[in-house]
């Protein structure tokens, strides 16, 4: 029980510190153009990694399952310039439909 609380408290404090460090200490400082350019590319790099891991990672192994099919359907919707809500619903419905069939 105390182990649970230790986990909850340490993870909570660490997360607050991780999220707060940049905004508290680095704010208002002018970044050199190179650094700004590199930080600007964080978004595509991280978003692509989140796409990949959310769709194809199952714990510590790779898996091709219904999430991949949902992503494919969602990708088609993105290409057709569907609104965000529709992209998300199409992906979820595809995965749910495939799971219902198998």
């Amino acid at each position: 029980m105390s182990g649970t609380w230790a986990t909850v408290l340490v993870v909570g404090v660490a997360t607050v510190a991780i999220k707060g460090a940049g905004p508290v200490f680095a704010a208002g400082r002018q970044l050199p153009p190179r650094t700004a350019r590199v930080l600007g590319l964080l978004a595509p790099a991280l978003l692509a990694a989140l796409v990949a891991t959310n769709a194809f990672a199952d714990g510590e192994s790779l898996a091709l399952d219904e999430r991949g099919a949902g992503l494919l359907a969602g990708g088609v919707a993105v290409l057709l310039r569907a609104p965000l809500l529709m992209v998300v619903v199409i992906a979820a419905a595809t995965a749910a439909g495939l799971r219902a069939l198998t």
Partner: protein
Amino acid sequence: MRGLVLHTATSLIGSMPESRRKRIPRWRAYRDGARAVLPLLPAVLAFGVSFGVLAKAAGMGAVASLVMSATTFAGSAQFAAVSVLGAGGTVAAAIGAAVLLNGRYGPMALAAADAFRGGPLRRLLEAQLLVDESWALSNRGGRFDRRVLLGAGALLYVGWNAGTALGVFAGDSLADPATLGLDAAFPALFLALLAPLLRSARAAAAALLGAGIALLLTPITPAGVPVIAATAGCLVGLARPHPLLAAARADRGDAQRTLAQEVSP
């Protein structure tokens, strides 16, 4: 000067002009953030519920589960910590997994650092509403819209904690989010947010590198490491900008036109 630097950075990564946000009244940006994240609310609620159910099954206790969702507010890290504890792992392993998973918020918060306002405490508190979805939705090509981030983050916070409470107290009677395909909503969301950023060769290269690193490392490193390591994809920004980019910039005919023409071959 700062405006010029930021403008250069924004035009280099081929993003949305910053002038747009100034004309929007204050409250509307918060509302826009909340509205943008609305499509995800059912999924966030459902995952909050499954966290509550899983935490209960792992013997975590109702209060500890609720406190964890309120203070950590990060799904993947919480799931990881609870599943390690539930499988009989050590406290150190549970903490390590969760902290590694949340490590990505370090560079993300740094990138958004300039968006926050006020003194250190207020910045610290506001930054807690930064999660993957609120960060991505408020991204305006390298700059971040604070109100959109806070509006989206606040609604996600409410959904996540309400879901956790539902799961802890009434979880047994609710459906599994996987049956509803809700786990497939997240990769599609991130793809939809990524697509408009891919207008420059650099951004596409950073995205490809990021996805490649994450997939490559998934089978060989602990959970959380692949996404942190994928941030290295942004280092393609260190590559020298001209002559190709300078030429592209001149084509776009923006403020740097003259300068760009001077340096292009």
